[in-house]
């Protein structure tokens, strides 16, 4: 039995558990419903160019994704280490030849497979419905595909972060609190704080130099900027998103930020799991 076989076993069991716990169903429904609601209720592509519907919805959905995907990702992963300590199964699992690094990586892969499935099905259904109703052009399909792929990357970042946070406490409850805190800080409060600083700064040095870097450093904002910057449309964008077309960095740097976040979170999850005494 190799390390790969052991990791496949752990990942498969995580995947199976997510199905049994109805997590997959819940997440898929959430993604489908929110995407459809945005397409047909929110922006309501009522202009002359109906074929733009997919592109326009991709733009507005990228904003919603920043809230929804991290939440779902943290929901699936916050329990992964602390929960096993609390239930006593971590000691059992670590008494087998499974290494701690293998455990972390395998759980990450299992969770990511589950989240990818939910995003692909949810946004896939919504995309097909929008294209069926309004038609689709190449630009729209490309924007939609980019949205789905980067949403998975964003999800991977937050699954890894959730696992790192799960390696800190010994109780599931504390891990849940940490996950909610992380979501609030990274997804909600971070942007508010930056906007506040920009207003106070009145277009000074901070706004021109530090601000774009700080926006890009946040994984949610990096995801949104990447998607919006690549969408060629005259859809109205406001607030932080105005930066999408005036970013003083190449667009690919947003992807690099996401990959860095992913690598750092996985490393943290591994390091924190290593020091646990089950």
């Amino acid at each position, binding site marked *: *039995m190799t390390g790969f*076989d*052991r990791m496949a*076993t*752990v990942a498969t*069991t995580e995947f*199976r*558990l997510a199905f*049994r*716990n109805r997590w997959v169903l819940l997440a898929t429904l959430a993604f489908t419903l929110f995407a459809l609601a945005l397409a047909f209720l929110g922006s309501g592509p009522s202009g002359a160019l109906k074929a733009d519907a997919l592109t326009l919805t991709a733009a507005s959905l990228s904003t919603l994704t920043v809230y929804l995907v991290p939440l779902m990702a943290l929901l699936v992963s916050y329990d992964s280490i602390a929960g096993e300590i609390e*239930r*006593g*199964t971590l*000691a*059992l*699992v*670590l*008494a*087998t*030849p*499974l290494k701690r690094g293998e455990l972390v990586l395998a759980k990450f892969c299992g969770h990511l497979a589950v989240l990818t499935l939910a995003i692909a099905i949810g946004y896939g259904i919504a995309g097909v419905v929008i294209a069926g109703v309004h038609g689709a052009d190449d630009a729209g399909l490309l924007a939609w595909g980019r949205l789905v792929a980067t949403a998975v990357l964003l999800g991977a970042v937050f699954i890894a972060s959730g696992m790192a946070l799960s390696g800190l406490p010994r109780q599931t409850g504390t891990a849940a609190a940490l996950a909610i805190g992380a979501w609030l800080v990274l997804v909600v409060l971070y942007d508010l704080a930056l906007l506040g600083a920009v207003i106070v700064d009145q277009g000074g040095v901070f706004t021109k130099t530090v601000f774009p870097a700080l926006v890009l450093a946040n994984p949610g904002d990096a995801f949104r900027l990447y998607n919006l910057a690549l969408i060629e449309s005259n859809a109205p964008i406001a607030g932080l998103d105005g930066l999408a077309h005036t970013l003083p960095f190449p667009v690919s740097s947003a992807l690099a930020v996401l990959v860095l976040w992913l690598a750092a979170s996985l490393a943290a999850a591994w390091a924190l799991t290593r020091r646990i*005494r*089950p």
Partner: protein
Amino acid sequence: MTDANILSVEELTVRFGAVTAVDGVSLTVAPGERVALLGHNGAGKSTLFKTVLGFLKPAAGRLSIGGVIPGSDAARRAVSYLPEQVAFPKALTGAEILTHFARLKGVSPKAALPLLEVVGIADAARRAVGTYSKGMRQRLGLAQALIGAPRLLLLDEPTSGLDPVSRREFYDVLEASSRAGTAVLLSSHSLSEIENRIDRIAILAKGKLRAEGALSDLSRRAGLPIRIRIEAAEGRVEAVHAYLGGERVNGRSVVVTCRAEDKVAALARLAELGSDVADIDIALPDLDDVYRHYSGLTVEGATQ
């Protein structure tokens, strides 16, 4: 290295900061041997187990699993563990959990699944663990520990909370696997929970090993007194007390204590009282008295 023991612990000390949880403990377990580790909560049993598993690093002393270091690949393959508190995922079935652990241990699930039969929960193999009773979950835990016929089984308080029938069946399974060569080290907090099917007992208190040996040896070495309670015939209690000495209790009875080897002589003296005696009751020291004696707690009438 020609160490016949699957587990050998020498002068092991484990500390958590300023607290010494295990203090200079030496212990060996040979293949096929069943050893019970006894101690109250906080005596150091779980700490010792976790050190054997390689989860905790010793502050001093040596520990070897059949010649290899705890926590190494070879040690992990040799040792199986059942923690005191384990809650398997409720949504999985017993068969799925057994398959999961078989794969982690590199054993084919086909070879592992018959273990559900061995521990007597084959009927529930396809049911979710959430529907299992406590006894069934404990049996599943044991089946998990037996996967791949480990050379050393570490069971942390495996029978606490089991009913007497389940407990006997639990020991039946342990006996079968020890006959096949598996060494068993199990912990308990009370001697009365240990069936008379354990080869050796090691008593741990405050991290130190207080006594070790076969149960019969330990109870003889403890030299605990036998208590004889004599109920006197109507109005004869003074006469009985004057003749035997001892202690008067509740009006009609006298209690005397004697050592095990003096029992027959004491009964002969009693017989001389004839009709003054209405009834006698002999209480031998029980297992928990023996345990309390060694773990340093006071025993009524102990000769110490």
